[in-house]
């Protein structure tokens, strides 16, 4: 038994009764494990069954209680395709109080990480607002610390879309200061945003593969199984575009929009509070006092034009400014 639990079990297996204090020490070691795996659970269960006669009744109760309540968690050993993007991070589970969803599913849960997949993060937040059930139905908790995410493949390619099931564990990549590197929940105990990105990255071949450009509509199709639409903002007559945003969001379909590149002469982002070369969730469209507005969200979860309340990334932009600052727009079906 080369692991720490094994060493502890071997140490207490003297020709005497195992005390409650020793049992509690075993449990402490077990809780300190990075991940309480089914293999470790079996190891401890076997010990209790095999050496029942040597256990003090209180020690036995302590161990049996732990075995009964501890939730074994599978360790999927994150594939190289996920690990190779950043080697300066450690992958650790969120912890025992992690939860797939905390207070439901909202756009505000989504915080983009240190990777250039704003199209994906914005798309995830758009889906959260448009139809949280799409996300809820896409992620299955396997009950062992792993989660299976269902995507659709081949949407809009003529045939019937095929389901793709990708299983990931909830290990999160963190920098030395504990900060999550990839997409995460605003509440660090909330798992769903990170799991969605992790599964998408695993499916597509790694974080490097999804962090090098892409489109939100691909995500929309992959989650909903329905065709999406995309185009340049200027493809539309302004009134038609406003109505399209309004009707699409009112139908609970996701919308995301991308800005021009930073060096693009068509837009100057200085002083606007909007960033070039970035994707935003489009959460809705409204008319207030005769002025048209679009509600947007920065997938960073902060950083927005001034005068929009708390800095949570969500803001209203006059539609006339939207037309000037945004280059392309994607509509989920």
């Amino acid at each position, binding site marked *: 038994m080369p692991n720490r639990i094994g060493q502890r079990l071997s140490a207490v297996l003297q020709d005497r009764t195992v005390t409650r204090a020793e049992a509690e020490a075993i449990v402490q070691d077990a809780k300190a494990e990075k991940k309480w795996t089914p293999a470790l659970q079996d190891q401890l269960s076997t010990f209790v069954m095999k050496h029942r006669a040597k256990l003090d009744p209180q020690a036995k109760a302590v161990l049996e209680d732990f075995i009964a309540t501890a939730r074994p968690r599978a360790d999927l050993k994150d594939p190289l395709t996920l690990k190779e993007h950043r080697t300066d991070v450690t992958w650790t589970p969120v912890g025992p109080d992690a939860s797939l969803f905390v207070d439901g599913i909202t756009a505000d849960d989504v915080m983009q990480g240190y990777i250039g997949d704003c199209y994906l993060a914005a798309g995830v937040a758009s889906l959260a607002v448009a139809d949280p059930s799409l996300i809820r139905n896409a992620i299955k908790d396997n009950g062992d610390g792993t989660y299976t995410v269902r995507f659709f493949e081949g949407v809009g390619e003529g045939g019937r879309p095929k389901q793709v099931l990708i299983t990931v564990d909830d290990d999160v990549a963190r920098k030395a200061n504990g900060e999550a590197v990839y997409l995460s929940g605003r509440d660090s105990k909330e798992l769903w945003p990170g799991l969605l990105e992790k599964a998408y990255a695993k499916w597509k071949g790694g974080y490097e593969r999804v962090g090098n450009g892409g489109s939100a509509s691909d995500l929309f199709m992959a989650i909903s199984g329905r065709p999406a639409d995309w185009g340049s903002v200027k493809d539309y007559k302004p009134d038609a575009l406003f109505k399209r945003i309004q009707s699409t969001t009112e139908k609970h379909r996701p919308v995301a929009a991308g800005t021009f590149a930073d060096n693009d002469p068509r837009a100057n982002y200085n002083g606007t509070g909007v960033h070039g070369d970035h994707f935003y969730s489009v959460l809705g469209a409204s008319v207030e006092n005769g002025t048209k507005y679009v509600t947007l969200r920065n997938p960073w979860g902060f950083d927005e034009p001034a005068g929009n309340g708390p800095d949570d990334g969500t803001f209203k932009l006059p539609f006339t400014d939207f037309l000037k600052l945004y280059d*392309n727009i994607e509509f989920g079906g």
Partner: protein
Amino acid sequence: MPLDLEKALADAAPGALVNVPAGAYAANLVIDKPLSLVAMGTVVLDGTKQGPVLRVRTDGAVKVAGLTVVGGRTGLAGGGLALDAGELELLRCTFRFNQAPGFGGGALAVRGSAVARVSQCRFEGNTGRQGAGVLVDEGGKLVMRDSLLAQNAAFEGGALCVKEGAEAELLGCTLADNRVLGDAPRGGAVALGGTMTRAPKVTLSHCVVGERTRGASTFSNFEAHPGVLTLVNNLLPEWCAAFGGDNRYAEAGFVGQGTEPYFLTKESLAVGAAQGDAYGPSARDLLGRPRSLGTRPADLGCFALAG
């Protein structure tokens, strides 16, 4: 008064032929019905960086012939031409200086159920993240012959990037002086990238890949989820010799001067190297010249022997 292209396309009946008079047009056009768009003389469509120059999405067949497509730019896929759905025949067109900085397919993106059949076209000086010349993605299909992909630059797949479930077949093409940039460049000429569930397929036959093609590697096939790369009777750079098979490995032997720097010299191993029936005596190169002289087999690549 120049033709109002947007109106002409809107007014055209399905299956119509839209002739475009010679001239330069600022254009960001959407083709959403089967039709033919044919240049009458020298026609330049300039996207003026306002979006893709052409966007094709129809359940039918579209033919585009003789156009020079420049200045397209999109944050999505397909700076010059975004083929989202339908079958496109692209004949004798030139794509130059188009951009797709946010995604890919600087000149041309073929996605979803779309199929592009490209013949005697040029893709030159385009840029994009993935596939600066052409991006084929999400099940799209590309059949390209007798075409030139040169001096395009991307992060991944300088000339061509083929991704999940997509297929590309290049016959008698020349790929030269394309390059990849950035922190993790892949595939100076061609990059393949599959997913856990779908692999792309790329076949190159009777092509010349120029010795001046630059990048992390000439061909990049994503190791974790590789595609199917088939190379049949091409002239490839010497550092691709590990591919083996019936390919030839040497400098391409371009003349490198004048207005057509990718003409073959007499010494090039591409001269008279065609096999089988793919390039018989009637085959023509990008300039419409016979690919073979007399009974000699045709040359590889899109240009026949210089002179």
